[in-house]
C-alpha cells in the first residue's frame, strides 16, 4: 500500500489561516467604513432636517406674530379688561367696611322721637350716636330698638356712654356702637 507524505502540510495550513484572517480584516474594514458612512449620512441628514425644520418654524412664527400684530387692538382690550377685572375682584374681596346705607336706614327707622345731634360712622365699624330726646320713653324705645333682635344683625355692641338731663327738660345722650363688618 502506497502512502503519500506531504511535508508542507503544516506550512500551508498556517498560510491559509493567515490569508483567511487578512481577508476577514479587509472585509471588516470595508464593512466598518460602510457603516461609518451610513452613520455620517444619517448624521448629516438629521442636521439638514433640523435646519429645515428650524427655518420652517421661524417662518411660521413670523407669520403668526404678524397675524397677532394685526389683532393687537383686541389683545390690548383684553389685557386692559383682564387687568381691571382681576384688580376689582381683589378689591371687592378685601372690602371689609360697614354697610353705611343699611346702617343709616336702620338709624332713621329706629330713632323716632329723637333729634340726632351727631352720628359718626367709621369703616372699622365704630359708631358714635349723640342725640336729644324730649322724653325718656322715646329714648327708652330707641335703646330697645338698638338692642333688640333685629339690631343684632347690625351691631356687636351697644353702650350708652353718656346721659344728661337738660335743665329745660329733655335728655342728652351718647351711644357708642360697634357695627358688624
Amino acid at each position: 500500500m502506497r502512502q503519500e507524505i506531504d511535508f508542507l502540510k503544516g506550512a500551508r495550513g498556517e498560510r491559509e489561516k493567515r490569508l483567511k484572517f487578512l481577508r476577514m480584516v479587509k472585509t471588516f474594514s470595508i464593512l466598518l467604513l460602510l457603516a461609518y458612512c451610513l452613520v455620517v449620512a444619517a448624521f448629516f441628514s438629521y442636521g439638514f432636517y433640523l435646519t429645515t425644520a428650524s427655518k420652517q418654524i421661524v417662518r411660521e412664527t413670523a407669520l403668526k406674530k404678524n397675524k397677532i400684530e394685526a389683532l393687537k387692538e383686541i389683545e390690548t382690550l383684553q389685557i386692559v379688561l383682564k387687568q381691571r377685572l382681576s384688580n376689582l375682584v381683589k378689591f371687592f374681596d378685601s372690602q371689609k367696611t360697614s354697610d353705611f346705607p343699611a346702617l343709616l336706614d336702620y338709624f332713621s327707622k329706629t330713632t323716632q322721637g329723637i333729634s340726632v345731634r351727631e352720628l359718626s360712622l367709621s369703616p372699622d365699624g365704630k359708631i358714635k350716636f349723640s342725640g336729644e330726646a324730649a322724653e325718656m320713653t322715646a329714648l327708652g324705645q330707641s335703646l330697645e330698638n338698638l338692642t333688640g333682635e333685629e339690631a343684632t344683625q347690625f351691631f356687636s355692641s351697644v353702650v350708652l356712654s353718656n346721659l344728661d338731663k337738660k335743665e329745660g327738660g329733655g335728655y342728652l345722650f351718647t351711644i357708642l356702637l360697634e357695627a358688624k363688618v
Partner: protein
Amino acid sequence: MKINLKDLKPFLLPALVIFLILVVTAFVLKPRLEVMTKSRQQLTKDRKILADLTKKLATLEGLAKVEFSEKTDIALAVLPAEKDVPSNLAVIKNVALNNGLIVNNITISEVGEIATISSEVKVRKDVILPSFKLDVSLTGGLEMIKNFISQIQSAAPLMEVKNVSLSQKKTESPETKMEIEAYFLPFPKTLGKPEQQLIAITSGEEKIFSRINDFTFLRGQQTLPNLPVGKENLFSP
C-alpha cells in the same frame, strides 16, 4: 527582529479606515454635533413658542372685538387709567343734586403727582387700587345722605365712602362730612407683546363685570357748573 514592510501591507486598509473615522469624528462630527445639540434645543424652544403663538392667535380670533371694546369702555369708566378729578367731582355733584343735597365743600387731598408725573403713578405693592381722597361736606336729611352714599358707591368712576359724620344744630338741616376714596388704575406696562400669553377672563371676573355693568354712568350729563366769566357781548346792555 526585522519587520518586513510587505507583511504590514494588508493592515494598511484597516488602519486607513480607522484613521479616517477618527479624523472625521474629531474634526467634522464632533463640532457639528455641538451645533446640532444647540439647534435641537433651540428647535424645541421655538416649537413651544410657535405652539403658544398658535394658541394665542386662536384665542384672539375667537374674541369679539365689539363686545370687548364695550366691556373695556365700561371697565375704564369704572376704573380710569389716571386720576380723573373732574369726573369724580362731576359725579359727586350730580348724585348730590339728584338727591336734593347741597354740596357745601369738596376738598381733594393726596392728588399730588397729577400735574407732574401723572403718567408714572407708583403703586405700592400692598395697595390693590391706587386712590386719592375727597372730603365732602353736604347738607340734607338722613334719607338723602343714605341714598347719596349708596348711589355714589355704585356709580362710575369707582368711589368708596370711608367715614361719615353727620351733625345737626337745632333748626338747621343736618350737615354731613364724609371722606370719599376715589380709585383709578394705570394701564399695565407689558401691553400687547406677541409672546405674552393671554390669560382668560375667569368666571369670578365675569361676575364682577356684571356687577360694574350695573353701575350708574353719569358721563354726558351735567358736569361742572359754568361760572359767569364776564360779558360775552360787550355791546349788549
